[in-house]
């Protein structure tokens, strides 16, 4: 039997705003499958986003949804989670939203290890504003504001998250659609701050400036660069040149989770009263 | 109007804001008068100039800052130089005699000086309570709050472990000021 996505889609809110060939819809379907797998309660689940194409995702999902300001998803979500720790809080957004204007909130959410899951759709570009370069645009690539090639080095979102203290970090791609929900399921189940980076594509503002002839070519690139972590163990540095690791990159169980730690603060304060 | 203005001045870290707060608390909580305490301070937690002002009155206090100061405590030379300008004719000027060596040459003030910090160090045993020695002295000199009420305010403002130390500091300050002004 085919999977029933409609159960999680808000009636009347489709079609979505994404361009043909954009991978955000693939990620949304992965998220929906994950939510269904975990049997999340809609009323007990908040999906929070910032601004950008990817950040329009919450509007389509039938649960508690919060479309905040540019870069602020993690900070709004922290407020929601602290006020109602029993809720499942899932953040979605793009690379510019999450690592540039929202970079500070992102690293501090990682540091606190607050029990939320952040799905970052990394399409290397600011799509909604017309294709300006983001902190994840590869050096030398073209964007509407790097007409001579991007002089900036890019972020590795996964490394950033690990360095900042996130306790579950995974990476997938929009091509490997069947892996997305599995990574998200594991991320949501993890007690602590979990980050799932999904390498994505933007044919409209990134692909056409960087000589990708079609969406298929962009998707094929995702297929080619992705190397599962297990497979990578058997590969040489030379073979790994230009490749990107996918799967669960990092997992740590011992670091205390933030809302649980704050519950202890409450206990100590009440005892001291 | 019965408005009475006190200023506690010196350098940051000497505890003068605390001294001002306790004086105001004594007046407003224990003495049944009205009091407002305010302060100005620089970016330094230690050092820099520091001033704490207390207005005491029988009725409501509108302007919370000093207009003409009735009693001034100066714990550094800089504070003495800087804050004497609006001390009333005949007003009280209490200084630490070790630190304030140049007294104002103009103005007709009732100047009382004794080595406040050194008294705390040698007679009380801890330099850190110099502000309470100074407070005891200011209470004795100004007569705005009773000795008993001031002591209550002191004891309700310090951690339990330091109650005896502060009681002693307050008492010695009070007595030294009376002796110095006699």
């Amino acid at each position, binding site marked *: 039997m085919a999977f029933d996505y409609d159960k999680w889609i808000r009636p009347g809110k489709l079609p979505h705003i994404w361009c043909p060939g954009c991978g955000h819809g693939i990620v949304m379907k992965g998220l929906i499958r994950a939510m269904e797998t975990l049997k999340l309660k809609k009323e007990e689940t908040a999906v929070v986003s910032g601004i950008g194409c990817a950040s329009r995702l919450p509007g389509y999902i039938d649960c508690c949804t919060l479309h*905040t*300001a540019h870069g602020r998803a993690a*900070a709004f979500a922290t407020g929601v989670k602290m006020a109602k720790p029993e809720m499942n809080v899932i953040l979605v957004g793009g690379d510019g939203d999450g690592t540039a204007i929202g970079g500070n909130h992102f690293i501090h959410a990682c540091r606190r290890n607050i029990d939320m899951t952040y799905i970052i759709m990394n399409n290397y570009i600011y799509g909604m504003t017309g294709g300006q370069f983001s902190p994840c645009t590869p050096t030398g690539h073209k964007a509407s504001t790097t007409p001579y090639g991007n002089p900036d080095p890019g972020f590795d979102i996964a490394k950033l998250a690990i360095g900042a203290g996130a306790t579950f970090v995974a990476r997938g791609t929009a091509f490997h659609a069947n892996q997305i929900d599995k990574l998200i399921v594991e991320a949501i189940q993890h007690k602590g701050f979990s980050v799932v980076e999904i390498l994505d594509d933007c044919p409209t503002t990134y692909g056409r400036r960087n000589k990708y002839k079609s969406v298929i070519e962009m998707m094929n690139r995702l297929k080619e660069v992705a190397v599962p972590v297990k497979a990578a163990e058997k590969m040489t540095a030379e073979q790994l040149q230009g490749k990107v690791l996918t799967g669960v990159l990092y997992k740590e169980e011992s670091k205390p989770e933030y809302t649980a730690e704050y519950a202890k603060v409450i206990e100590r304060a009440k005892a001291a009263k | 109007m019965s408005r009475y203005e006190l200023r506690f001045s010196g350098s940051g870290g000497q505890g003068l804001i605390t001294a001002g707060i306790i004086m105001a608390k004594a007046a407003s909580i224990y003495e049944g008068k009205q009091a407002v305490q305010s302060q100005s*301070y620089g970016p330094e937690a230690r050092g820099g100039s520091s001033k704490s002002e207390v207005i005491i009155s029988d009725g409501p206090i*509108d*302007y919370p800052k000093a*207009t003409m100061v009735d009693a001034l405590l100066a714990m550094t030379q800089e504070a003495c130089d800087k804050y004497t300008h609006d001390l009333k004719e005949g007003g009280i000027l209490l200084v630490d005699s070790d630190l304030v060596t140049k007294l104002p040459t103009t103005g007709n003030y009732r100047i009382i000086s004794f080595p406040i910090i050194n008294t705390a160090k040698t007679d009380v045993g801890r330099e850190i309570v110099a502000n309470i020695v100074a407070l005891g002295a200011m209470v004795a000199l100004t007569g705005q709050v009773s000795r008993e009420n001031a002591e209550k305010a002191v004891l309700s403002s310090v951690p339990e472990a330091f109650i005896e130390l502060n009681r002693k500091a307050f008492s010695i300050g009070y007595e030294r000021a009376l002796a110095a002004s006699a």
Partner: protein
Amino acid sequence: MSKKVAFLQGNEAAAHGALYAGCDFFGGYPITPSTEVAEVMSIELPKIGGKFIQMEDEIGAMAAILGASLAGAKVLTSTSGPGLSLKQELIGYGCIAEIPCVIYNVMRGGPSTGMPTGPSQSDVMCAKWGTHGDHPAICLTPASVQETYEEVIRAFNLSEKYRTPVMVMPDEIVAHMRERIVFPEQGEIEVVPRKSPTVPPEQYKPYDTSFGDVPPLASFGSGYKFHVTGLNKMQDGFPTTKADIVQAEEERQVRKVDANVDDIVTFEEYLLEDADVVVVAYGSTSRSARYAVNIAREQGVKAGMFRIKTFWPFPDKQIKALASKVKGIVIPEMNLGMCSLELERCAQGKVPVLGIFRVDGEPINPDQILEKIKEVK
């Protein structure tokens, strides 16, 4: 039983006022001269099971309280000028998404870092014009420690009643001076609860105007599911660019305050009945003004004071009435002329508006005001 009294700073009183009002979430970032609020909240909130979080920056603090408010908490943040500037985008978010919250902003010298420990009243315009776009604005300017306590409670009430951010803006003098405060008993001051939905979840719309200009607000995690956005939205919370809906919604948001000015605006009239000169003042400056007015009276000058307690919405009606009664208006303020512009607007040229403007970190003293009172002929 005698009431509990204490000798507190304005900032400490603000925190206790928030707790009285039922505040159970504080998000903040350290900034002089407001940090005492955060410090008291960090001690008191966990004792009652509330949440205190120090965020990574001012914007994060504002975001956290908005998120927590949507999850049903009564929320407070405290800040000062530079922090207020940083929070402004999200204050606008709170206005358009109609999320109750209280922003306590201590006014210090500016612009930029300015004079962090010096008093000022130069943020009052930021309370109305700081965030972009048209939006309702409520801003209270207390003048004493007791009033700071009470006005913070009122701010929470207004915020819930009108479902909009409310600012409380003491100047640094009020925030840091200490006075005796008498705590009200439980129930003595009204605490307004959030208007929760009465319809079942499947019928709920977060901006349902069939319930009036202030629609009920459900909480995340309470059985209701709905969408919130900072985009112009329809009654169901989803974005729209339909001209008639956007126009109607923006007008409704502003009307929540505009149509209820008499419920929101508070002020004090002092010796105004026969006054020839009125000193209009707010915050700590009003204390100097009262002192000056008393001296003027002793000297035979018929002076009075109109004390602004609610700065926004501005007491237009009252000032207009005064302007046709008196010979002149004196406005002392610790900025280079902000309230004076509003007074000139209301006075419509009928009487002169004489300003005393100080931005040197020193309070405006009664003598300065007295001198200006005497200039009115």
